[in-house]
């Protein structure tokens, strides 16, 4: 355990602001304000009336006039009360991640992972999970519109047929199609067929979150487009430069699994991860050494690395001090070292990194080269530029935009030029900015409603199958393209099946049920590395660089109307419902601003006033802004959330204090533990572990006055490996989806009333400039000696025979004593009828979990509904519950398998083995609560050659 460096949770705490510390220490911070005002007569009467009404409301026996509506014909394969799962994929910017959709009573209700899919191996990210919410989103586009007037598909068809003569005559000249990145074999085949009919038609691609540098970098290095597929489980040393390996890169779930498999010293030899970052990302959280570097330092580092590895020279003067040690470590692991660089860095940097990886002997070992996964790997910025120029020149008569929202995500010139196009059509799931700006808008079938296909990061194809009939008469991109090709009644199934005509019916059904088409992984290629591709352009010379990054959850804005994603605390800032400008503390000091203070940004003649947030570990010469916020045309949830940084023009950025403040909702200081943070997340170095494997253990707690819990054969327990947690929040959304956890909105988060049963606490260790990040998922610990139970006056929280601390909602009268007495602060109170007022439609709720009413306490139940289901299955077969039969929602979603769950009385179970690890410890064990959740302490494989400045 490290006692040297301070550990802190928020900046105010680090700076020791006494008022702040007193406020967060209070169990119910909102209460102090109410008490200070004192009661008045009217309020007391109001409250009395309300509680009377509430009490009487509780006496309602429910609707006695229930109905039972059986079917006409029993649908095959559906038994009421038994769940089904169907495989499909979640496609983001062209790349597929396999998912399965869980159905209750024939209705899709939850997105879960698909263990058979190579990009996820059963994990599922927050964006994919939130798709169930967008499927039922009442703000979805409900029908065809023309000039913002309602129209029908028939009238669109007529209108297009009238134009077809002209298009035919021009051989497609003036007809353009704009898509995002395309990997779908069906879509490519359709576009090719259309191109055959209209030879002068042009197909443009533009993805808001650009990967042009990755494409161009590979082309510079190898002379042809190739896709690098990383094998992180084989890498002993990883250098991640401004990398998105674990957060947004295609295949990030698989990357996370592969890296995490090498991060627990008990399981095997640890890998070593270095991260060089301008703004913190998930790989930096996992890294053993994280170096803060702005654009200039990244340039220097790459130049020096090239000198050290390609030319075996000594690092140049001016290179960062740590560089020699890192270069030496990489060179010492030939064939087992890997460098990765993020898509926001220039193409030349990518080319150099390819050359370095080749020099390190990684090809075929730490990475493979395959044929590009994309159908047409072009430079999308050029493609979009051409389109805008042609539109502005009036050379385009007909434009079809498939599924993208360029009016919001592309430069403002796009929207301006679009006005010159006489016949523009947008196909989209929501009524977004582009839908408003085009002459026609067509409702697109939601990805869970349509037939399609797409490739994963390694080329593997998944057939997307509809989970329901389109809810709002929508059609897929395939069907619309078929319409353009002259098909009067396009059928999505027939179109996709035709692409895969070579699959026999058996193979087709096999592909649908497993979620992968076997044998479709990308063909390996073996291009030689081109020489001379290692010249770097001059470093950027801007005083302050604006880093525009996709929001980890709203992405480019397409998920802005998802309440789950809006209220999901961002991994490193814990902010919700907003996207302030992230700045380094040094810059904030220079500007004289603190968290929530407004600054004025100007660039390229445009200005924007936004709040700032001090991001520890941010490079001083960079400010980070997340895209996807500040949507102008969006549903009720995404309205007035955040700021659109795309409003700023190109050119040097200037930042100045604007005066005034803005309320930012962050959960970073909510639910603090009353303990020194150093002991909360136990951590140390590999050297310490090697010297003494028990080095994180503390003496056993004192004897307890309480009698021991009776020992049954079943005892549920959980172990969480802090070495594996990357803070991606997949578990938080999984828990929310599984347990009908409501969202509460920004105002209520500001009052510390968020309802997530599972949260990920984030601590910083060290200085504000370059801290290390420690993460700890927190959920109900199911203490054997639970402090909550002894203080409940009505027995609403009790133990069951298998050691679960259960909540009896009907008994709860809302005293909140339990929450006050919980040392882990994991209980959540329904201050309002959050569940009733929620945006989640009733179809997306889990029928197996009670929906909680106002005035009731709730908390993690260890997914008791899943335990009950397994218990019933086992008892029907007169056998014990097998190890691994109960998988909690958080455990199932976790990309790194950080969570193990099972029967701790069974010594052979996975969880019992994890709990026997020398790193295992009970959080706040000194309180003798005997928590059933234990953690495996974090071990850092520090390079002894690098001396990090301590705070």
């Amino acid at each position, binding site marked *: 355990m490290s006692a040297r460096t301070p550990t802190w949770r928020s900046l105010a705490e680090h700076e020791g602001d006494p008022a702040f510390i007193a406020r967060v220490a209070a169990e119910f911070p909102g209460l102090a304000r109410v008490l200070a005002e004192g009661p008045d007569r009217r309020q007391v009467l109001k409250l009395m009336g309300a509680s009377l009404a509430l009490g009487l409301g509780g006496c309602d026996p429910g609707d006695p006039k229930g109905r039972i509506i059986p079917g006409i014909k029993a649908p095959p394969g559906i038994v009421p009360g038994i769940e089904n799962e169907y495989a499909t994929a979640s496609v983001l910017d062209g790349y597929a991640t396999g998912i399965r959709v869980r159905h209750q009573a024939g209705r899709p209700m939850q997105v879960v992972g698909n263990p058979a899919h190579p990009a996820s191996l059963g994990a599922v990210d927050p964006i994919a999970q939130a798709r169930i919410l967008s499927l039922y989103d009442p703000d979805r586009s409900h029908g065809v519109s023309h000039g913002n007037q309602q129209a029908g598909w028939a009238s669109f068809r007529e209108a297009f047929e009238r134009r077809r003569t002209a298009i035919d005559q021009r051989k497609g000249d003036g007809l353009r199609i704009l898509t995002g990145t395309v990997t779908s074999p069906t879509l490519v085949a359709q576009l090719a067929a259309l191109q055959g009919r209209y030879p002068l038609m042009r197909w443009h691609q533009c993805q808001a979150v650009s990967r042009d540098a990755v494409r161009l970098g590979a082309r510079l290095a190898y002379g042809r487009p190739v896709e690098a597929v990383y094998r992180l489980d084989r890498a002993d040393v990883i250098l991640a430069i401004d990398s998105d390996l674990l957060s947004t890169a295609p295949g990030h779930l698989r990357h996370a699994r592969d890296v995490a498999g090498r991060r627990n010293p008990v399981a095997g030899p640890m890998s070593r991860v270095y991260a060089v970052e301008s703004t913190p990302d998930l790989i930096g959280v996992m890294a053993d050494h994280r170096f803060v570097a702005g654009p200039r330092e990244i340039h220097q580092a790459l130049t020096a690395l090239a000198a050290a590895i390609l030319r075996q020279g000594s690092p140049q003067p001016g290179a960062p001090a740590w560089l020699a040690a890192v270069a030496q470590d990489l060179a010492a692991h030939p064939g087992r070292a890997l460098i990765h660089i993020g898509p926001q860095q220039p193409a030349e940097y990518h080319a150099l990194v390819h050359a370095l990886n080749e020099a390190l002997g990684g090809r075929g070992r730490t990475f493979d080269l395959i044929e590009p996964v994309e159908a047409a790997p072009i430079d999308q910025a050029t493609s979009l530029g051409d389109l805008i120029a042609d539109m502005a020149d009036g050379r385009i008569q007909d434009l079809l935009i498939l599924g993208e929202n360029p009016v919001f995500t592309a430069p403002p010139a796009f929207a301006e030029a679009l006005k010159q196009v006489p016949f523009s059509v947008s196909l989209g799931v929501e009524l977004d900015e582009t839908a408003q700006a085009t002459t026609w808008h067509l409702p697109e079938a939601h990805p869970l409603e349509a037939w399609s296909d797409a490739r994963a990061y390694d080329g593997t194809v998944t057939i997307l199958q509809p989970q329901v009939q389109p809810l709002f008469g929508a059609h897929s991109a395939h069907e619309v393209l078929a319409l353009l090709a002259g098909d009067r009644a396009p059928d999505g199934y027939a179109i996709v099946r035709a692409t895969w005509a070579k699959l026999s019916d058996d193979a087709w059904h096999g592909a649908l049920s497993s979620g992968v088409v076997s044998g479709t992984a990308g063909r390996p290629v073996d291009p030689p590395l081109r020489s001379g591709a290692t010249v770097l352009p001059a470093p950027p010379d801007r005083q302050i660089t604006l880093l525009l990054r996709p929001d980890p959850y709203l992405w480019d804005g397409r998920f802005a109307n998802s309440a789950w994603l809006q209220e999901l605390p961002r991994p490193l800032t814990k902010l919700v419902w907003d996207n302030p400008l992230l700045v380094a503390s040094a810059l904030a000091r220079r500007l004289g601003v603190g968290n929530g203070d407004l600054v004025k940004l100007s660039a390229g003649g445009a200005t924007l006033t936004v709040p700032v947030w001090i991001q520890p570990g941010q490079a001083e010469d960079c400010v980070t802004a997340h895209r996807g916020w500040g949507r102008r045309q969006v549903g009720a949830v995404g309205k007035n959330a955040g700021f659109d940084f795309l409003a700023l023009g190109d050119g040097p950025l200037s930042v100045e204090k604007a005066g005034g403040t803005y309320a930012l909702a962050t959960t970073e200081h909510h639910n603090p533990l009353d303990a020194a943070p150093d002991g909360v997340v136990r951590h140390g170095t590999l050297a310490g572990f090697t010297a003494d494997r028990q080095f994180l253990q503390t003496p056993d707690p004192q004897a307890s006055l309480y009698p021991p819990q009776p020992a049954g054969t079943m005892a549920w327990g959980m172990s969480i490996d802090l070495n594996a947690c990357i803070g991606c929040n997949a578990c938080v959304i999984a828990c929310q989806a599984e347990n009908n956890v409501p969202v509460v909105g920004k105002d209520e988060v500001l009052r510390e009333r968020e309802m997530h049963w599972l949260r990920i606490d984030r601590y910083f260790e060290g200085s504000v400039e370059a801290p290390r990040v420690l993460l700890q998922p927190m959920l109900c610990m199911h203490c054997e000696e639970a402090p909550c139970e002894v203080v409940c006056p009505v027995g609403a929280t009790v133990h*069951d025979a298998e050691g679960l601390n259960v909540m009896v909602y009907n008994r709860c009268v809302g005293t909140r004593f339990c929450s006050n007495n919980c040392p882990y602060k994991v209980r959540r109170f329904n201050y309002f009828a959050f569940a009733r007022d929620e945006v989640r439609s009733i179809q997306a709720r889990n029928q197996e979990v009670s929906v909680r009413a106002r005035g009731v306490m709730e908390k993690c139940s260890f997914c008791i509904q899943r335990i009950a289901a397994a218990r019933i299955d086992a*008892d029907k077969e007169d056998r014990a519950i097998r190890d691994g039969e109960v998988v909690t929602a958080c455990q199932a979603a976790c990309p790194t398998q950080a969570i193990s769950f099972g029967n701790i009385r069974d010594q052979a179970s996975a969880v019992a083995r994890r709990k026997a690890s020398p790193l295992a410890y009970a959080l706040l064990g000194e309180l003798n609560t005997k928590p059933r959740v234990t953690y495996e302490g974090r071990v850092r494989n520090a390079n002894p050659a690098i001396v990090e400045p301590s705070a």
Partner: protein
Amino acid sequence: MAGVFEPSANLIAKAALLVFLEVLLAGLGWWFFAPRTDYASAVGWVLDQPVPFSHEHHVSGLGLDCRFCHTSVELSATAGMPATETCMTCHSQIWTSAKLLEPVRASFARHQPIVWNRVNALPDYVYFNHSIHIAKGVGCQSCHGNVGKMALTEKAQTFEMQFCVNCHRDPGPNLRPKEALFDTDWHRTAATPPPDALMAQYHIGGRGLTDCSICHR
């Protein structure tokens, strides 16, 4: 000076006190007992149904097994209500013009489901599972009564928590041999294995059957 109260005032006061007390007791009694009457819990009451389906005729008269219509009772949490198709298995051949069966034919022809009124209901926070009760030797009759005698279906039990908990505390007396599970008029006889033997046979025990978490989530 004469007293303010006449001597009879004592009697009136006492009587008034008595009446007050009686009203109070009656009120308390009403409050406590009224919800527990069969009237309040609708036990033994028949609801109007779109088709006056007779379990008596189909079960006792024709000898249909419960599972012919309630197909998922051994598989799933819910026993399942028959689709119109199931009714039409026979009624496309017999009683094809009966007026009583018009809603069934209409449902099939117009593709509109039959909407039944629910007879047995549990609150939403109770997660009852039919299949485990059948697997562990609790017959249909234990909760649904002798439906073979019901010309029109009625509720046989109050389904208050006490009813469930009584059996969860001591399941033995309510268990029956496997062959009797779907017998709607079964009674324990001398040949029936004793409760303890049935408990052992069905491997009941070892679970905290009275834990809140067994039924509530």
